[in-house]
C-alpha cells in the first residue's frame, strides 16, 4: 500500500500498561513516502503488524491536523519531532532521511503515567483547568458582545495564549517536567481580557495549587518548552502568571480563597 522509497528503523517504546515494565522494540518501516505524516508512517507499520497478527503500536491521535492536541511522541530527543512549530501529526517524513534510525518514546513525567506504549495519561491538565481555568458566567444573561471594547492588541495577545492545544509537549521537553507554560497560557489569556478580571487573582491561585498537587516540576526559565511548543506559546506567559500569583498572595488585600469546596 505504501508507495515511497524511504526505509527506516524505528526504536519504539512498548509497554502494555502502567503496571508492567516496558522496553524498546525495533521495527522496520519500509517504502515510506516523504509525503507521509509521521503518524501515517506508523500506520504503515501497524498495518503490517496487524497482518502478522501482532499488536499494533498504540499511540494517541485524532484530528491529524495539529489542533486537537491528542498526538504526542518524543522523537529523537524532541517532543513532536525535530521540526519547530508543528505537532507530530503535522510532521512529514521528508524531515527524515532514508536509512535513519528513529527513536520514539512516550512523554516522560511523573504526572503523565503511561497508558499503553506511547500513549500517556494527561488528565492532570484537565484537573488544572477544572480548578479555575474559566470565567464564572452562567449561560444567558450576559452583556452584548460589543458592550466592552477590547483593544485589538490585547485581544490578539490573549488569542496567542489561547491557542495552546494542551498537548503536553512543554512538560515533555522541560528538564524539570514543569507544566508552567501550559498553566500560564490559560491564566494569561483570561488575565488579559476584561472578562477574566473579576476572578483573575482567584484563578491563578487555584490553578497553581492544582498544578503543584499533580506533581509537575518547577520552572527554571530554561525555555525548552517555548522552543518545543507546537503553538509557539511564549515564555512570557509564565512571567505573567508569576506576577499575578505574587500579587494575589502577597499584595492583594481581599481574602482570596482557592476555589475548593
Amino acid at each position, binding site marked *: 500500500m505504501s508507495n515511497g522509497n524511504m526505509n527506516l528503523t524505528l526504536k519504539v517504546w512498548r509497554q502494555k500498561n502502567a503496571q508492567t515494565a516496558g522496553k524498546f522494540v525495533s521495527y522496520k518501516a519500509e517504502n515510506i513516502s516523504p509525503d507521509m505524516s509521521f503518524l501515517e508512517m506508523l500506520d504503515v507499520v501497524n498495518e503490517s503488524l496487524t497482518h502478522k497478527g501482532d499488536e499494533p503500536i498504540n499511540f494517541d491521535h485524532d484530528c491529524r491536523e495539529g489542533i486537537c492536541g491528542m498526538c504526542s511522541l*518524543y522523537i529523537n530527543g524532541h517532543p513532536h519531532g525535530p521540526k519547530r512549530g508543528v505537532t507530530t501529526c503535522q510532521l512529514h517524513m521528508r524531515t527524515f532521511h532514508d536509512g535513519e534510525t528513529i527513536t520514539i518514546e512516550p512523554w*516522560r513525567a511523573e504526572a503523565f503515567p503511561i497508558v499503553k506504549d506511547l500513549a500517556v495519561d494527561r488528565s492532570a491538565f484537565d484537573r488544572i483547568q477544572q480548578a479555575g481555568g474559566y470565567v464564572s458566567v452562567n449561560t444567558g444573561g450576559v452583556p452584548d458582545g460589543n458592550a466592552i471594547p477590547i483593544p485589538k492588541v490585547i485581544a490578539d495577545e490573549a488569542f496567542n495564549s489561547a491557542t495552546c492545544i494542551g498537548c503536553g509537549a512543554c512538560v515533555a521537553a522541560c528538564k524539570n517536567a514543569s507544566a508552567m507554560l501550559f498553566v500560564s497560557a490559560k491564566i494569561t489569556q483570561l488575565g488579559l481580557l476584561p472578562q477574566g478580571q473579576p476572578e483573575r487573582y482567584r484563578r491563578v491561585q487555584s490553578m497553581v495549587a492544582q498544578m503543584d498537587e499533580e506533581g509537575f516540576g*518547577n520552572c527554571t*526559565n530554561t525555555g525548552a518548552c517555548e522552543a518545543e511548543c507546537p503553538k509557539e506559546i511564549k515564555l512570557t506567559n509564565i*512571567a505573567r502568571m508569576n506576577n499575578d500569583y*505574587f500579587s494575589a498572595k502577597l499584595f492583594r488585600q481581599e481574602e482570596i480563597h482557592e476555589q475548593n469546596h
Partner: protein
Amino acid sequence: MSEFKQTFNSSLGKKLIMALTGLFLCTFLIVHVGGNLLLFNNDNGFSFNVYANFLTHFPPIEVIAYLLYLSILVHALYGLILTVKNRKARPVGYAVATKSDASWSSKNMGLLGSILFLFIVIHMGDFWYRYHNDKNMGFKEYRTDLATGVTTVADYTPANAEFSHSVATENNVEIVRVKDLHTRVATSFSNIIYVLFYVIAMGAVAFHLLHGFQSAFRTLGWVHRKYTPIVYFIGTWLFAVIIPLAFAAMPVYYYYLSTQGAH
C-alpha cells in the same frame, strides 16, 4: 501567617525565594567586586585592609552581612530542594537525551550552584573565618605623612589580644593599625591550585548569572517588552562578563606578582 507559609511552600513561592535571594547576592557581588578592586591599588594593602576592617566593624554592614550569609544558605537550600523535586517530576528519563533548544547554563544551574557553594565555603573559610578567628593573623601599621601624603608600612604587634584596630594622628602623621588580610590574600594567591580554583569558580559565577540574573526577573514576573532587553544586557555584560572577570583577575594578578618575587 499560614497564608505566607502556604505561599512559600508553593512551587512559585520557592522560586520567589530563589529569585530574591539570588538577586540580593547579585547586589552584594557589585559591592564586593568594587571593594576588592582595592587589591589592585599598589599601596601595600593599605586601602584594602582598611576597607576589610570597615566592613567588619560598621554595624549596619554587619547586619547586612548576616542577611547575606542567610541568603546564601537559603538560596542553596532551596536550590537543592527544587532540584530534587524537579528530578522527582521525571522519575523515568529519556533514552535519547533532549535536544531541545535551551542554553547550557540554564540546564545546569544546580551544578553551577553547587560549585559556587563549594567555592563560597572555602573562600569564606579562608578569608572570612580567619579574619574573624585566626589569632595568628598579623597586623599592619600604616603611617601617612599628611603633609607629603607618603605612606609607609610596618608590621605591628598588638599589645593585647583584644586589639582589633586603631586610627590616630600624631605630629601630622596618621597612624592606622589594622588586621593584615592583604598578606593573607597575597599568600593564598601565590598557590597556583588556589588560583585555578578561583578562576573556575568565577567561570561558574559567569554562567550561573548569565542565566540566573534574567531568570530571577522572569520568576518575579518582571518581563516587559521595553525593559527586559536591558535586564538581559546587564545580566550578560555586568554579571556574566565584567564582574567574574574582575574577580578572576585578582588571583591571577597576585599570582603574577608572586612569580615576580616582589610586592
